[in-house]
């Protein structure tokens, strides 16, 4: 389905709440010249906002003015020392009248670096909401926005989802400025570009597109910008909002946008020619375009011995396959082709299955769903309770169910092995997709045996080879084959070989044709 059509169709279905200010004011009404009018308008706009502060003062002994701000959003010390104090100190009036009153205040009285003259109401409201201080004087249709935002963010810490044994123990946080700084610290060159965009009709969330000039494909950058500009959401609470709208193949469970909380991982992607999207308020950055192998690589692969890293990658591929197919293989083999199991083992299995009243498919579906439920319960509950859940899950559902003869012991082994296997996939979204795909495969196996498993896997393969992430095939560099890229897929080639490869991710066909 063409992406354009898809975005358009999703756009119209989005529920939208009208911003009353925007509707009442029109596009951008100018500020009034009278202080009283402006003050009344502000008080009306921010009625019932108890955290708004309007402070009256006199500029140059004579001119009445007000400063307006949300008191919890500004830095109190900076406000006092760098804004109010100089304003109060009241330096003598300058003679020239070439520049406006506000320009004079800006250049003479306010020693804060980030100030901006504004002249319409919409800007004024936007600035106040963002945590800036707006200064309005009588007889002036201009206002001054002064940035004394308080820096409200947590300390930098290691991301809990992507921990490493060796490597920088630092992660992105919810503040986009700091995240940009973290990227800049990793890549010190002016070729690293960061373009800012505002997304979200009401929230005006800051979004930064980071890419390496010369390394990233201009077509991909243009496409990302185009898709971003088409977002018509009101508010962006997390980067996931954007991810779901700009991704290709919205109906696929596979993550065609990679996410990371690690600056080093994002920086590595930048150097490979990918685009990193940072969203204010979210510690999760998005990387495009990616292919499926990305989900099986961790940044630590590049920090450990390359032989061991290669081993780890194969371990992950193998267990991802196990996680996807083991239950269905078990169903197919035990129900349709028991001769595939070695004789002695088959005897043991048959003995274990004897007291169980259900067919294998029902048995394994019950246990798999129970396992998913236990996992979900463990994540959502407070940590101490979560541990209880796992004990209850292991004891009650595992042990007791087998003893009661409701499920057979091999099923418990299969289900727990599948569960552990799914934990080996570093990318959480990929792990989710594979966990989900297990169930249709199990059904195929229950109906058609090994033939069904084969057919299900082929269907999955067809889906995967046709998937694209911003013009790059999802299964690349395996299909379409690329000898350079394969070095980082079949294993982790040592750096002296890897640095020779062409480190570029270019789309395989014109993006506009999608």
């Amino acid at each position: 389905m063409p992406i354009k059509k898809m975005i358009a169709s999703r756009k119209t279905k989005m529920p939208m709440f009208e911003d009353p200010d925007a509707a009442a004011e029109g596009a951008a009404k100018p500020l009034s010249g009278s202080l009283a009018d402006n003050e009344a308008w502000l008080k009306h706009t921010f009625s019932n906002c108890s955290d708004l502060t309007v402070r009256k003062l006199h500029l140059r002994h004579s001119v009445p003015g007000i400063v307006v701000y949300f008191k919890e959003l500004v830095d109190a010390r900076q406000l006092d020392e760098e804004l109010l104090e100089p304003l109060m100190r009241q330096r003598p009036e300058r003679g020239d009248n070439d520049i406006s009153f506000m320009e004079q205040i800006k250049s003479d009285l306010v020693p804060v670096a980030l100030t901006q003259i504004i002249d319409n109401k919409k800007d004024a409201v936007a600035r106040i909401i963002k945590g800036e201080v707006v200064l309005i004087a009588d007889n002036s249709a201009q206002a001054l926005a002064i940035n004394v935002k308080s820096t409200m963010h947590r300390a930098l810490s290691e991301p809990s989802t992507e921990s490493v044994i060796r490597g920088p123990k630092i992660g992105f946080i919810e503040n986009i400025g700091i995240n940009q700084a973290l990227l800049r610290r990793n890549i010190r060159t002016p070729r690293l570009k960061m373009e800012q965009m505002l997304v979200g009709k009401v929230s005006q969330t800051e979004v930064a597109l980071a890419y390496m000039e010369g390394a990233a494909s201009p077509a991909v950058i243009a496409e990302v910008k185009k898709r971003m500009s088409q977002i018509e959401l009101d508010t962006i609470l997390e980067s996931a909002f954007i991810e779901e709208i700009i991704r290709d193949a919205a109906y696929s469970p596979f993550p065609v946008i990679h996410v990371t909380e690690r600056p080093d991982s994002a920086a590595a992607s930048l150097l490979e020619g990918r685009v990193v999207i940072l969203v204010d308020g979210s510690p999760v950055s998005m990387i495009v375009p990616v292919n499926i192998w990305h989900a099986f690589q961790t940044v630590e692969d590049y920090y450990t011995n390359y032989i061991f890293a290669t081993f780890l990658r194969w371990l992950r591929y193998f267990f991802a396959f196990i996680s996807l197919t083991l239950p269905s293989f078990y169903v197919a083999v035990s129900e349709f082709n028991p001769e595939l199991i070695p004789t002695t083992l088959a005897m043991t299995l048959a003995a274990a299955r004897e007291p169980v009243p259900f067919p294998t498919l029902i048995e394994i579906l019950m246990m798999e769903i129970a396992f998913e439920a236990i996992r979900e319960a463990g994540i959502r509950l407070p940590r101490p309770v979560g541990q209880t859940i796992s004990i209850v899950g292991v004891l009650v559902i595992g042990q007791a169910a087998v003893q009661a003869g409701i499920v057979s012991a091999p099923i418990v082994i299969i289900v727990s092995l599948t569960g552990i296997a799914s934990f080996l996939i570093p990318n959480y979204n990929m792990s989710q997709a594979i966990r989900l795909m297990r169930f249709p495969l199990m059904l195929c196996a229950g109906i058609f045996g090994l033939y069904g498993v084969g057919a299900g896997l082929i269907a999955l393969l067809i889906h995967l080879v046709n998937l694209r992430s911003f013009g790059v095939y999802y299964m690349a560099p395996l299909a379409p084959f690329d000898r350079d890229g394969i070095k980082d897929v079949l294993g982790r080639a040592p750096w002296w070989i890897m640095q020779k490869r062409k480190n570029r991710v270019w789309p395989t066909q014109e993006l506009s044709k999608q």
Partner: protein
Amino acid sequence: MKLSGIQAFWMIAVMDLGMTILMTYTPALQAAQQDAWMSMLLAGCIALLIAVISAKLVLLYPQQNLIEFSQTIMGKWLGKLVVMVYLVQWYTIIPIILRQFSDLIQILLLPFTPKSVIISVMILLVVYVTYSGGIDGIGRCSEILGPIILSMVFLVLLFSVNNIQWHRMLPVYADSGVSAILRGSLPPASYLGHAVEFVMLSSFLNNPRNGSPYAIWGVGIASFSTLLAMMMVILTSGVNLSSRTWYPFFEMSKKIAIFEFIENLDALAVVIWVTSVFIKLSVYLFITSYGTAQFLQIRNWRRLIWFIAPISVAFAFIPQNVSEATAGYLNHYWVPVVLPVNMIGLPLLLLIVGKVRLRRKKA
């Protein structure tokens, strides 16, 4: 829709390999007995010849496929006649493959499942890949499945090594006569000769002029593997036994036993083999619908899939039993008509006429 050389290589190799190993060993063994391996060698040579002719043929007009260049070379009406001959081949091969495949699955994996269900599952997959991916989607699938299928074949051969009984090779040359060897080589040659479909694929290549080595290598690898597998079948099962079974290759894989733990691998081998049928059917469905669309000048070839797929399923039920599906079609149409006419005769004719025309144009 663009195809890379490697994709074309795997496509042709897989198309030739899977069905040849399964379907042609019994007739070859019955005809040539102990000398069946020589029949395979001969068949490989014939297939290579077919591949070389096709590769030369597409070089005449690299940007055109069979439908277009046959009309360029032979003129409008004669060209259309040539295309008709190929259309008959394509429209009959899909139901036959479907039928042969479902017979095999029913015998080996799912004895209680009706054929119609087995066939429907496969045709759904084939339609899915052809409709959503076109020829390059099929190409990407074969790029991934090809190595898996090839390694399955070689693993089965490798694991069978300890079942070898050398005395079965003797006599190496039983002197069954040239005609018997030739007769035995025709069925495998006609299956390996599927490489002739390269005349439809070549124009989709990124660089059609450099495509021929890939096609010839594809046939080479497939011929070599089938030769090796045939020798292994003779060595492990012997001629007497294997010429009386339907699927000697799977009989061989059934005998595998390693560490007394990995046994009865035939079911797994069948599943992997299914993927080669899937590739073959997808290529044929694409060629058929694309070719028909071009022939009838229908702009959207994808629409024809909805017409060809159900028809093929319906036709798949015409043969009454396994032997009619496998041997009847092979002996009465594929070997006597398709091999000499569609695979060798017509491409050669087109090649000669095309060369003459091009030379005359230059002069």
